[in-house]
């Protein structure tokens, strides 16, 4: 038994030594990277050795962060950790709630105050009313459109012990609808419309916060109905005017990305191409861009993301179809506008798109509207951002930091 004990001791020491040696060598040999695709974040930079950093310990603390990010097998081991958590059926894995075929976002527990929501809705309505007043002053028409984000679309799929934000969603929609109605601002809520169409899963995504092109198409149609009720001023494209094409690459939604791809990828994204193409020019932030609205992945690409639509978020995009007999449109909002923009330009002479989160120009929202005087202005946001007065929720005097009118 003594021989056996010694053999076990030596075996353990050898195994641990080999493990640590391998980790050391592989970490030292690992290629330095700046960005983690799956985690969608910049990796910790290699710290610079300074006397101050040595003295206060910040250098070694930063070095540990860098080592963790660049340790041998960081991605593979992180994915293994995710797989283990999924296998253990934890309700929340990397802020994702896996429910059958759905990957939903984790929502923090919250206490919802009716008064606070009403006050936020009133502030938001004031901002929107200022935009509406400006647009109306030169004869234009404004509409605020709200679309369900993924947690709202699938709120009934959350287990009862998790927060689906159903209470907040209901309160915020009702409060804003009332506040906008009191101020005479047009409001389009796509939730009830999606419900009236049978609440099909195609209007949202199972693995991402955004809707796909079919939900965007319904939003496009509904928006035109609100902006031009008679249908005389804005031409509409019906479903049969498009050819739908489902891309072969799996859709790497933001939730799948949070799970580092450790989830079977089954959802595919679709694009709608007009049967009669409309030629156009495109600029992004003042610079000419290729005349495309879909950023199609290369044949060798393993994934496609929501950036497929309009190539992702851009501060300011202008699509010009050179059809002066048609009206002009300004659509501003968060990334939910992207999929709608892929279709909306087809109905207008010019389509301006603003995302004040990324806009680097000098103009305020009001100044931009004054400068271009679009015939129609649409603010499109999802339920989560419905009452947020920062960035795309500003009034006419607002900058992206969220200064009110």
């Amino acid at each position, binding site marked *: 038994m003594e021989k056996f004990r010694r053999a076990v*001791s030596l075996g353990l020491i050898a195994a641990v*030594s080999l*493990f640590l040696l391998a980790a050391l060598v592989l970490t030292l040999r690992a290629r330095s990277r700046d960005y983690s695709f799956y985690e969608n974040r910049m990796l910790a930079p290699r710290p610079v050795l300074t006397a101050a950093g040595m003295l*206060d310990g910040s250098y070694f603390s930063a070095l540990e962060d860098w080592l963790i990010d660049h340790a*041998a097998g*960081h991605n593979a081991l992180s994915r293994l950790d995710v797989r283990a958590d999924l296998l253990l059926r934890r*309700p*929340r894995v990397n802020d994702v709630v896996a429910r059958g075929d759905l990957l939903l976002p984790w929502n923090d527990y919250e206490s919802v105050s009716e008064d606070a929501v009403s006050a936020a809705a009133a502030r938001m309505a004031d901002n929107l009313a200022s935009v509406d007043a400006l647009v109306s002053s030169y004869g234009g028409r404004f509409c605020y459109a709200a679309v369900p984000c993924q947690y709202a679309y699938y709120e009934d799929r959350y287990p009862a012990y*998790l927060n689906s934000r159903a209470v907040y969603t209901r309160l915020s929609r009702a409060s804003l609808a009332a506040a906008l109605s009191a101020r005479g601002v047009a409001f389009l809520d796509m939730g009830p419309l999606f419900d009236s169409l049978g609440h099909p899963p195609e209007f949202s995504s199972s693995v991402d916060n955004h809707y796909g092109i079919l939900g965007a198409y319904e939003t496009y149609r509904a928006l035109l109905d609100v902006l031009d009720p008679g249908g005389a001023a804005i031409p509409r494209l019906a479903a049969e005017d498009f050819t739908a094409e489902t891309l072969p690459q799996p859709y790497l939604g933001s939730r799948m990305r949070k799970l580092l791809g450790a989830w079977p990828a089954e959802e595919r994204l679709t694009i709608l191409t007009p049967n009669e193409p409309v030629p156009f020019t495109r600029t992004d932030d003042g610079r000419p861009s290729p005349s495309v609205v879909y950023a199609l992945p290369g044949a060798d690409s393993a994934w496609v993301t929501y950036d497929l639509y309009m190539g992702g978020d851009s501060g300011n995009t202008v699509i010009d179809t050179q059809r002066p007999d048609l009206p002009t449109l300004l659509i501003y909002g968060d990334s939910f506008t992207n999929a709608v923009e892929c279709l909306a330009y087809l109905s207008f002479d010019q389509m301006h798109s603003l995302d004040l989160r990324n806009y680097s120009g000098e103009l305020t929202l009001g100044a931009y509207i004054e400068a271009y005087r679009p015939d129609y202005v649409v603010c499109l946001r999802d339920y989560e951002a419905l009452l947020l007065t920062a960035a795309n929720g500003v009034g006419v005097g607002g900058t992206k930091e969220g200064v009110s009118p």
Partner: protein
Amino acid sequence: MVFSSVSFLVFFLPCLLAVYYLVPKRLRTLRNLVLLLFSLAFYAFGGARYLALLLASVAIHYVCGLFAAPDRAATVRRRAVAAAVVLDLALLGWFKYAGFFALTLRGLGLPLPVPQVVLPIGISFFTFQGLSYVIDVSRGDAACQRDLLRVALYVTLFPQLVAGPIVRYTTVEREIGARDETVEDFASGLVRFLFGLAKKMLLANAMGEAADAVWASDLSSLAAATAWLGALAYTFQIYFDFSAYSDMAIGLGRMFGFRFLENFRYPYIASSVTEFWRRWHISLSSWFRDYLYIPLGGSRRGRAVQVRNLAVVWLLTGLWHGAAWTFVVWGAWFCLLLIGEKFVWGGLLARLPAPLRHVYTMLAVVVSWVFFRAPSLGAAAAFLRVMFLGGAASAGGESVYYLLQYWPEWLLCLAASLPLRDLLRDRLARRGTPAASAVLVAGPALCALVLLGAAYVKLVSGGFNPFIYFQF
């Protein structure tokens, strides 16, 4: 630097082991020098500016130790001990308590400036260690060490430097000069270290996440069940965090030929608070017993003096853990319970069925951790109010979430709080068959390897990884 870090596990430890074991065993002084230099580097990782403080502590205890030696006159010895006490208290007082006292006096209306002093890592541990050395020398319990390298190594030895356990000089006196590093000791130390690492990475961190999330909640919307789960999560976190550090320290010591004493003996199986403190942070409670409680007279001078002595010890135990009123109340809470058990309800408690005694003890301990964890006395009171008087009834879903999210950890924490490993070991040893003996020998090693893999996955995938006892 912490043990549960890539820098320690993948770089520091292998380098130290390689250099240390390249030095032949007969060159003990050189091996000690290697260990000392790496220990200083280990400390410097947390901020080299406090290295001077650590070296000053070494110098204080070395010099005071020389003058406290039994061959000196009694007056000189007394003065040497007094000097060590005064200097240690001055250092602790400035670095740990100056801000607290200034804030308290300001609260009483005195217009004092509040010094912004950063707490050096491990100051409470290495100060108490050094002080015990000087006192032991003056009492004749330990020989005066005239070799500065050995005193420096004793005070700065990295395994227990920043978070204990508080190792007495008498425990390692012989080993510093002549220890015998063996393959079997190294392997058993390695197993202990890896079990500690896994306890920290797999159990303490998960429970810490749960506890922090509950403590970050808005108390007005917190349900009583959730508050209880938060308190229980912290109860597990602090035990597995601190005992994991002690396991790693004891294991590392063993890998270098030192045998540190145990610091925890399954404290959550205690059936009285008195027993709890015989099982929890043993090195601290025995330090206060031997260097404060007994010198004050202990229980030998009547009930009133004993109560006073207990009060002094527990006030200081509370303050040792942190410069805040929450820690003072935490100490007072245990003082009250210990006095109660000694003089009031101890007899009744002894007659209660074991499960009831255990429930009483755990209730007392869980409440104590609420004071320990709370950022203020007001927050502790509010949290306890939710626990005992009920909170928001509609927020019960959170408690289901915390149970389901951490279900493997709840079960493992419960199992690891019980002496199941000891029971299994005893049963296998009693069986005495070759297969049982083989499991006894190889089982821990295999488990340790699996746990290393699991802990490494958690470590490299990042996330929550603080050590609670670093703040002391």
